[in-house]
């Protein structure tokens, strides 16, 4: 369960989408610029943000499980260090647990779990970014974003509405995919669909934005879905009560607030 929880976090993060850059450009931007803007749009909207997440996990036999949590995010700098605080509400056996991440650029992230029944602050190793977040089809990396420097990027298509970027991992032995292709909306720079190929070049996983709305001026993914083509299950995340630039203090992302959730994390 602990690990499961961790996984959840990731999804939530991706939900925070964002950002706007001027869509009108004379020349086609180069691929590094595109992925960099997409990264900012998807993960760095505003200086901070909050969202309630309702996640429905459906397995191949149609059985559903549910996760509800609140996610708080604060950026140290755009495209750089970030803090995440995830406060679980449902199911009740994980209620009040907290998962916290300090995301770094040049070293492994720092992660903590707080288990209220034991008053235990547990530190979690960050090596497992491609594991499921709270048992869902989202991975940690979907939630908090994959470091851009881990892939080589190639612009394979540019049509009226989207850029299509193919990403090939620099260390293929560290990941379960051989490549993934992302469609990026030209207006908002939000990634709207990612298709993953396995080591045999077969499609096995799709991450997509189902609904995009503007919140506080930021184009935001308010519903996203991951489909596991191999096993047949899928997970849908819905985001509500989204707010940006609410003035979260940095000390919320410390042990003090693991033991005592901040007002912003309660419903």
């Amino acid at each position, binding site marked *: 369960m602990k690990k499961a929880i961790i996984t959840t976090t990731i999804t939530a993060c991706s939900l925070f989408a964002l950002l706007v850059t001027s869509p009108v450009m004379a020349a086609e931007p180069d691929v590094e610029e595109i992925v960099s803007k997409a990264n900012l749009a998807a993960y760095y909207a505003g200086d901070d943000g909050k969202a309630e997440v309702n996640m429905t996990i459906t397995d191949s036999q149609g059985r559903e499980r549910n996760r509800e949590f609140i996610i708080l995010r604060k950026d140290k700098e755009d495209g750089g260090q970030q803090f995440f605080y995830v406060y679980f509400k449902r199911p009740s*056996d994980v209620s009040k647990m907290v998962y916290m991440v300090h995301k770094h650029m040049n070293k492994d992230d720092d992660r903590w779990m707080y288990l209220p*029944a034991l008053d235990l602050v547990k530190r979690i190793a960050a090596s497992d970014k491609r594991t499921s977040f709270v*048992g869902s089809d989202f991975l940690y990396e979907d939630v908090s974003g994959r470091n851009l420097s881990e892939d080589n990027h190639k612009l394979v298509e540019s049509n009226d509405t989207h850029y299509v970027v193919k990403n090939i991992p620099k260390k293929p032995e560290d990941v379960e995919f051989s490549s993934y292709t992302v469609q990026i909306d030209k207006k908002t720079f939000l990634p709207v669909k990612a298709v993953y190929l396995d080591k045999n070049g077969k499609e096995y996983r799709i991450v997509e934005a189902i609904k995009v709305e503007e919140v506080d001026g930021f184009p935001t993914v308010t519903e996203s879905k991951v489909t596991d083509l191999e096993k047949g299950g899928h997970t849908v995340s819905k985001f509500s009560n989204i707010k940006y630039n609410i003035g979260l203090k940095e000390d919320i992302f410390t042990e003090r607030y693991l033991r005592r959730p901040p007002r912003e994390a309660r419903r």
Partner: protein
Amino acid sequence: MKKTALLALSALLACHAGSGVGSAMAEEEVSLTDRLYDDYGIEMLGFAETRLGSRLVDDENEDTLSIGEARAQVELTRFFDSFTLLFKGDLLADAITEEVDADIRGLNVAFRPSDVLDVKIGRMVSTWGTGDLVFINDMFPKDWQSFFIGRDDEYLKQASNAFRTGIFLGDYIIDLVYTPRFQGSEFVKGERLSYFNPGAGQIVGQNMVMADNAPDDYFEDDETSIRLSRRFGGVETALYGYMGFWQEPEGMDAAIGKAIYPRLNVWGASARSPVLGGIGNIEAGYYDSFDDDDGRNPYIRPSEYRFLVGFERELAHELTGGFQYYLEVIDEYENYEQTVAPGMEARDEYRQMLTMRLTKLLMQQTLTLSLFVYYSPTDQDGYARPKFQYKVTDNWLVDGGFNLFWGEDEHTFWGRFQDNSNAFVGVRYSF
């Protein structure tokens, strides 16, 4: 006979609670929870469960049934603008003791009188330190008996009545937990688990339940735990102090023939940090058993140095491994050795212990297989806890496992429990 009847009753009760909760809850639980929140702002959580277990080793002095109980827990939380109230209570029908017990695991108020101060007063569970199921500087009360018979891990920690405060001064944090009256840990004394009694020279159980005399004067027999912590980048460091008593009766009052809790101070330090793709931890403590007369008092456990180093990381996809090395060194060993009563087994000067934890998640993290092992190469004894936990749905959980003790000798730390190996299963409905 009576026991069987009670067990049947409690099992029935649990089933009832379960099915009642199950069907009624399916539609109504949501509304009750929501109504409490909507009308009174109270958040409610809880569960009902039943648990059964059996001894795997014959012990003429104990029941075959190692655990047989039905339990319900309710937790209520109310957040106000400036403070938070919490209640968490268990009701337990126990077929072994043939009693129904209420256990309040939380009843407290938490508030923040200033930006640099957090205060919590009442009944609460407290935990700190870096060890995984090995505690050096965490002197808060435990319940090892619950742990050994297969209750949920939550019950390893007992709640106690305390005043807790956190002072946040920039990078430094000072935590202080004051318990006005000593509580002590729940330990194995023969009632439901057998143990080696050095006086009797053998493993005893219900035929020789340990009688103890716990300090119980408010504000005189008190306990103070303090921690000073600071984070340097990814490295968390802390200094600890404890002034109180041994948590288990580590002394003997020869005059009254009862086990006693000698005075104890503990001073220690710890660090925890990401390292080699995992999390490393190191912790040390000095147990100053200052009434032991430098080891010359044969009725009081001598002072000790304790040391722990551990490492945890992911070994493969959804498989985590944790490893710890623990060392206990008796201070002034020559004195201790010379005062051990004839016929008693002296402890080794150095007691070493290794622990290993393996956790594997399967079936979209609904099935958890885990194994925790304590093994002492110096005592030639150990304790293993293989377990499974399956989340049938978001509400229903089934778990089960084994508690396996072994030892070359009967008088060593784990060896003394060797007749208590057991297996257990449980079913829980959470709401």
